[in-house]
Protein backbone atom coordinates (compact mmCIF):
# COMPACT_ATOMS: atom_id res chain seq x y z
CA UNK A 1 0.00 0.00 0.00
CA UNK A 2 1.33 3.41 0.94
CA UNK A 3 4.74 2.09 1.98
CA UNK A 4 5.48 0.40 -1.34
CA UNK A 5 4.53 3.61 -3.01
CA UNK A 6 7.04 5.58 -0.93
CA UNK A 7 9.93 3.26 -1.68
CA UNK A 8 9.25 3.13 -5.39
CA UNK A 9 9.49 6.87 -5.59
CA UNK A 10 12.10 7.43 -2.92
CA UNK A 11 10.64 10.58 -1.40
CA UNK A 12 8.51 9.43 1.48
CA UNK A 13 6.54 12.55 2.40
CA UNK A 14 5.51 13.82 -1.00
CA UNK A 15 5.03 10.84 -3.31
CA UNK A 16 3.56 13.16 -5.94
CA UNK A 17 2.64 16.84 -6.14
CA UNK A 18 -0.46 17.86 -4.27
CA UNK A 19 -3.31 19.36 -6.26
CA UNK A 20 -5.06 21.89 -4.02
CA UNK A 21 -8.84 22.20 -4.09
CA UNK A 22 -8.76 25.98 -4.22
CA UNK A 23 -6.12 27.93 -6.07
CA UNK A 24 -4.47 31.09 -4.78
CA UNK A 25 -6.26 30.95 -1.44
CA UNK A 26 -4.16 30.36 1.64
CA UNK A 27 -5.21 27.20 3.45
CA UNK A 28 -6.87 27.78 6.79
CA UNK A 29 -5.50 26.15 9.93
CA UNK A 30 -8.14 23.40 9.77
CA UNK A 31 -7.55 22.73 6.08
CA UNK A 32 -3.85 22.26 6.81
CA UNK A 33 -4.66 19.96 9.73
CA UNK A 34 -7.12 17.94 7.61
CA UNK A 35 -4.52 17.56 4.88
CA UNK A 36 -1.86 16.53 7.40
CA UNK A 37 -4.09 13.91 9.03
CA UNK A 38 -4.99 12.50 5.61
CA UNK A 39 -1.33 12.32 4.61
CA UNK A 40 -0.34 10.63 7.87
CA UNK A 41 -3.07 7.99 7.60
CA UNK A 42 -1.96 7.20 4.06
CA UNK A 43 1.69 7.08 5.10
CA UNK A 44 0.89 4.74 7.98
CA UNK A 45 -0.96 2.46 5.59
CA UNK A 46 -4.32 2.78 7.39
CA UNK A 47 -5.74 3.25 3.92
CA UNK A 48 -4.33 4.13 0.53
CA UNK A 49 -4.64 7.46 -1.24
CA UNK A 50 -6.88 5.72 -3.77
CA UNK A 51 -9.17 4.43 -1.03
CA UNK A 52 -9.34 7.91 0.52
CA UNK A 53 -10.25 9.44 -2.81
CA UNK A 54 -12.83 6.75 -3.52
CA UNK A 55 -14.53 7.39 -0.17
CA UNK A 56 -14.61 11.17 -0.72
CA UNK A 57 -16.10 10.55 -4.16
CA UNK A 58 -18.67 8.13 -2.74
CA UNK A 59 -19.77 10.67 -0.12
CA UNK A 60 -19.84 13.53 -2.64
CA UNK A 61 -22.01 11.40 -4.92
CA UNK A 62 -24.66 10.83 -2.26
CA UNK A 63 -27.92 12.72 -2.61
CA UNK A 64 -31.17 12.94 -0.64
CA UNK A 65 -32.69 10.43 -3.10
CA UNK A 66 -31.95 7.34 -0.99
CA UNK A 67 -33.52 8.91 2.10
CA UNK A 68 -36.52 10.04 0.07
CA UNK A 69 -36.99 6.52 -1.29
CA UNK A 70 -36.95 5.16 2.26
CA UNK A 71 -39.50 7.69 3.49
CA UNK A 72 -41.82 6.92 0.55
CA UNK A 73 -41.53 3.20 1.24
CA UNK A 74 -42.30 3.81 4.93
CA UNK A 75 -45.42 5.77 3.95
CA UNK A 76 -46.57 2.91 1.73
CA UNK A 77 -45.71 0.04 4.08
CA UNK A 78 -46.44 0.42 7.82
CA UNK A 79 -44.43 -2.71 8.70
CA UNK A 80 -41.38 -1.25 6.99
CA UNK A 81 -41.98 2.04 8.79
CA UNK A 82 -41.89 0.21 12.13
CA UNK A 83 -38.60 -1.46 11.18
CA UNK A 84 -37.20 1.88 10.02
CA UNK A 85 -38.13 3.56 13.31
CA UNK A 86 -36.41 0.67 15.08
CA UNK A 87 -33.18 0.68 13.03
CA UNK A 88 -32.72 2.93 9.99
CA UNK A 89 -29.45 1.36 8.83
CA UNK A 90 -30.90 -2.15 8.82
CA UNK A 91 -34.12 -1.04 7.13
CA UNK A 92 -32.04 0.73 4.47
CA UNK A 93 -30.36 -2.58 3.62
CA UNK A 94 -33.76 -4.03 2.73
CA UNK A 95 -33.94 -1.46 -0.07
CA UNK A 96 -30.35 -2.03 -1.14
CA UNK A 97 -29.24 1.27 0.40
CA UNK A 98 -25.95 1.47 2.32
CA UNK A 99 -26.60 4.04 5.05
CA UNK A 100 -23.10 3.60 6.51
CA UNK A 101 -21.78 2.34 9.80
CA UNK A 102 -22.88 5.20 12.05
CA UNK A 103 -26.31 4.47 13.56
CA UNK A 104 -29.10 6.64 12.18
CA UNK A 105 -32.38 7.18 14.01
CA UNK A 106 -35.59 8.36 12.39
CA UNK A 107 -37.89 10.63 14.37
CA UNK A 108 -41.47 10.64 13.14
CA UNK A 109 -43.64 13.69 12.66
CA UNK A 110 -47.17 13.13 13.91
CA UNK A 111 -50.28 15.30 14.22
CA UNK A 112 -49.04 16.58 17.55
CA UNK A 113 -45.26 16.63 17.16
CA UNK A 114 -42.99 18.29 14.61
CA UNK A 115 -39.32 17.29 14.72
CA UNK A 116 -36.34 19.34 13.59
CA UNK A 117 -32.68 18.31 13.60
CA UNK A 118 -29.65 20.39 14.51
CA UNK A 119 -26.14 19.70 15.78
CA UNK A 120 -25.13 22.57 18.03
CA UNK A 121 -21.60 21.40 18.83
CA UNK A 122 -20.57 20.60 15.26
CA UNK A 123 -22.66 19.64 12.24
CA UNK A 124 -23.46 15.91 12.49
CA UNK A 125 -25.62 14.81 9.57
CA UNK A 126 -26.54 11.44 8.01
CA UNK A 127 -24.52 12.08 4.84
CA UNK A 128 -24.53 8.51 3.59
CA UNK A 129 -28.33 8.49 3.58
CA UNK A 130 -29.40 12.01 2.63
CA UNK A 131 -26.30 13.46 0.98
CA UNK A 132 -24.16 16.46 1.84
CA UNK A 133 -25.62 18.94 4.30
CA UNK A 134 -26.63 22.37 3.04
CA UNK A 135 -24.26 25.17 4.06
CA UNK A 136 -26.85 26.75 6.32
CA UNK A 137 -27.05 23.54 8.37
CA UNK A 138 -23.40 24.05 9.30
CA UNK A 139 -23.76 27.78 9.97
CA UNK A 140 -23.37 29.17 13.47
CA UNK A 141 -26.66 30.99 13.08
CA UNK A 142 -28.76 27.89 12.32
CA UNK A 143 -27.00 25.87 15.02
CA UNK A 144 -27.44 28.43 17.78
CA UNK A 145 -30.88 29.73 16.85
CA UNK A 146 -32.59 26.38 16.23
CA UNK A 147 -32.35 25.42 19.89
CA UNK A 148 -33.20 28.90 21.16
CA UNK A 149 -35.96 30.06 18.83
CA UNK A 150 -36.94 27.08 16.68
CA UNK A 151 -40.32 28.47 15.65
CA UNK A 152 -38.75 31.64 14.27
CA UNK A 153 -36.16 29.58 12.35
CA UNK A 154 -38.89 27.31 10.96
CA UNK A 155 -40.94 30.36 9.92
CA UNK A 156 -37.95 31.58 7.90
CA UNK A 157 -38.19 28.33 5.93
CA UNK A 158 -41.91 29.00 5.39
CA UNK A 159 -42.96 26.51 8.05
CA UNK A 160 -45.39 28.06 10.49
CA UNK A 161 -46.78 25.65 13.03
CA UNK A 162 -49.79 26.17 15.29
CA UNK A 163 -49.08 26.46 19.01
CA UNK A 164 -50.81 23.16 19.75
CA UNK A 165 -48.17 21.29 17.74
CA UNK A 166 -45.14 20.49 19.88
CA UNK A 167 -41.88 21.55 18.25
CA UNK A 168 -39.27 18.97 19.24
CA UNK A 169 -35.68 19.93 18.51
CA UNK A 170 -33.14 17.11 18.33
CA UNK A 171 -29.59 18.20 19.05
CA UNK A 172 -27.51 15.37 17.62
CA UNK A 173 -24.38 15.82 19.65
CA UNK A 174 -23.11 12.27 19.85
CA UNK A 175 -22.33 9.10 17.99
CA UNK A 176 -25.69 8.89 16.27
CA UNK A 177 -27.28 10.70 13.37
CA UNK A 178 -30.91 11.73 13.07
CA UNK A 179 -33.38 12.19 10.23
CA UNK A 180 -36.99 13.27 10.26
CA UNK A 181 -39.64 10.91 8.94
CA UNK A 182 -42.21 13.45 7.75
CA UNK A 183 -45.95 12.77 7.70
CA UNK A 184 -47.48 11.66 4.41
CA UNK A 185 -49.31 14.60 2.82
CA UNK A 186 -53.07 14.40 2.40
CA UNK A 187 -54.38 13.72 -1.09
CA UNK A 188 -51.66 11.21 -2.00
CA UNK A 189 -53.79 8.09 -1.57
CA UNK A 190 -53.02 5.59 -4.30
CA UNK A 191 -49.78 7.29 -5.36
CA UNK A 192 -46.94 4.96 -6.25
CA UNK A 193 -43.70 5.09 -4.29
CA UNK A 194 -41.74 6.93 -6.98
CA UNK A 195 -44.32 9.74 -7.01
CA UNK A 196 -44.33 9.84 -3.20
CA UNK A 197 -40.52 9.99 -3.11
CA UNK A 198 -40.72 13.05 -5.35
CA UNK A 199 -42.42 14.94 -2.51
CA UNK A 200 -39.64 14.22 0.00
CA UNK A 201 -36.93 16.85 -0.04
CA UNK A 202 -33.69 17.15 1.89
CA UNK A 203 -35.19 19.95 3.98
CA UNK A 204 -38.18 17.76 4.93
CA UNK A 205 -35.76 15.17 6.29
CA UNK A 206 -33.96 17.85 8.36
CA UNK A 207 -37.38 19.00 9.53
CA UNK A 208 -37.33 22.63 8.46
CA UNK A 209 -40.06 22.14 5.85
CA UNK A 210 -43.04 19.85 5.30
CA UNK A 211 -43.61 17.80 2.15
CA UNK A 212 -46.02 19.57 -0.16
CA UNK A 213 -49.07 17.54 -1.15
CA UNK A 214 -50.97 17.80 -4.44
CA UNK A 215 -53.13 20.69 -3.19
CA UNK A 216 -50.16 22.81 -2.20
Amino acid sequence: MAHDHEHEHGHPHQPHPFQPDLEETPLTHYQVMTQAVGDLLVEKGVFSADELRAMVEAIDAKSPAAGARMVAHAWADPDFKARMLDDVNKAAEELGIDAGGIPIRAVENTEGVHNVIVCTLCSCYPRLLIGLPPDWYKSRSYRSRTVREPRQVLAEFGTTLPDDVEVRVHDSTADLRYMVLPARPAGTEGWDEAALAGLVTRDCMIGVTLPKGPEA
Partner: protein
Amino acid sequence: MSARFDIGETVKVRAAFPPGHVRTPFFVRGKTGRVTAVLGPYRNPEELAYGRPGEPALPLYRVIFETAELWDDYRGAAQDTTVVDIYENWLEAP
Protein backbone atom coordinates in the same frame (compact mmCIF):
# COMPACT_ATOMS: atom_id res chain seq x y z
CA MET B 1 -21.83 -1.99 31.29
CA SER B 2 -25.19 -1.50 32.86
CA ALA B 3 -27.04 1.77 32.49
CA ARG B 4 -27.59 3.66 35.70
CA PHE B 5 -30.79 5.37 34.55
CA ASP B 6 -33.95 3.90 33.03
CA ILE B 7 -36.34 5.20 30.42
CA GLY B 8 -38.76 7.62 32.03
CA GLU B 9 -36.40 8.53 34.85
CA THR B 10 -35.79 12.19 35.71
CA VAL B 11 -32.13 13.19 35.47
CA LYS B 12 -30.12 16.31 36.05
CA VAL B 13 -27.22 17.35 33.83
CA ARG B 14 -24.11 18.21 35.81
CA ALA B 15 -23.50 21.95 36.00
CA ALA B 16 -19.81 21.46 35.27
CA PHE B 17 -17.63 23.52 32.97
CA PRO B 18 -14.37 21.63 32.50
CA PRO B 19 -11.86 22.77 29.88
CA GLY B 20 -11.12 20.65 26.83
CA HIS B 21 -13.27 18.54 24.56
CA VAL B 22 -16.78 18.27 26.00
CA ARG B 23 -19.81 16.74 24.32
CA THR B 24 -22.52 18.19 26.53
CA PRO B 25 -23.91 21.48 25.21
CA PHE B 26 -23.77 24.48 27.55
CA PHE B 27 -27.48 25.16 27.36
CA VAL B 28 -28.50 21.93 29.14
CA ARG B 29 -25.95 21.98 31.95
CA GLY B 30 -27.63 22.21 35.32
CA LYS B 31 -31.03 21.48 33.72
CA THR B 32 -33.42 18.67 34.53
CA GLY B 33 -34.86 16.35 31.89
CA ARG B 34 -36.24 12.86 31.38
CA VAL B 35 -34.60 9.82 29.78
CA THR B 36 -36.44 8.74 26.61
CA ALA B 37 -33.97 6.15 25.32
CA VAL B 38 -30.85 4.29 26.39
CA LEU B 39 -28.76 4.18 23.23
CA GLY B 40 -26.08 1.74 24.33
CA PRO B 41 -22.41 1.91 25.25
CA TYR B 42 -20.06 4.29 23.48
CA ARG B 43 -16.41 4.87 24.25
CA ASN B 44 -15.99 8.13 26.14
CA PRO B 45 -15.55 10.80 23.43
CA GLU B 46 -13.94 13.19 25.89
CA GLU B 47 -11.11 10.68 26.30
CA LEU B 48 -10.98 9.59 22.66
CA ALA B 49 -10.43 13.23 21.68
CA TYR B 50 -7.00 13.03 23.34
CA GLY B 51 -6.01 9.71 21.79
CA ARG B 52 -6.81 7.71 24.91
CA PRO B 53 -8.79 4.46 24.73
CA GLY B 54 -12.08 5.88 26.06
CA GLU B 55 -12.70 2.77 28.14
CA PRO B 56 -14.80 1.85 29.98
CA ALA B 57 -17.54 2.67 27.50
CA LEU B 58 -20.32 4.89 28.80
CA PRO B 59 -24.06 4.47 28.36
CA LEU B 60 -25.46 7.16 26.09
CA TYR B 61 -28.96 8.50 26.75
CA ARG B 62 -31.51 10.56 24.92
CA VAL B 63 -32.77 13.14 27.37
CA ILE B 64 -35.83 15.30 26.69
CA PHE B 65 -36.17 18.78 28.18
CA GLU B 66 -39.00 21.28 28.19
CA THR B 67 -37.60 23.99 25.95
CA ALA B 68 -39.14 26.75 28.10
CA GLU B 69 -37.10 25.40 31.04
CA LEU B 70 -33.88 25.80 29.05
CA TRP B 71 -34.33 29.45 28.09
CA ASP B 72 -35.72 32.14 30.37
CA ASP B 73 -37.01 34.19 27.46
CA TYR B 74 -38.36 31.30 25.35
CA ARG B 75 -41.13 32.59 23.07
CA GLY B 76 -42.36 29.28 21.63
CA ALA B 77 -45.19 27.13 22.93
CA ALA B 78 -45.26 25.68 26.44
CA GLN B 79 -45.19 22.09 25.20
CA ASP B 80 -42.11 22.51 22.97
CA THR B 81 -39.27 20.14 23.78
CA THR B 82 -35.58 19.64 23.09
CA VAL B 83 -33.87 16.27 22.97
CA VAL B 84 -30.12 15.93 23.52
CA ASP B 85 -27.82 12.88 23.54
CA ILE B 86 -25.87 12.85 26.81
CA TYR B 87 -23.26 10.44 28.19
CA GLU B 88 -23.79 8.95 31.63
CA ASN B 89 -20.85 10.75 33.24
CA TRP B 90 -22.78 14.00 32.79
CA LEU B 91 -25.99 12.81 34.44
CA GLU B 92 -26.95 12.62 38.07
CA ALA B 93 -30.08 11.93 40.09
CA PRO B 94 -32.03 15.20 40.49
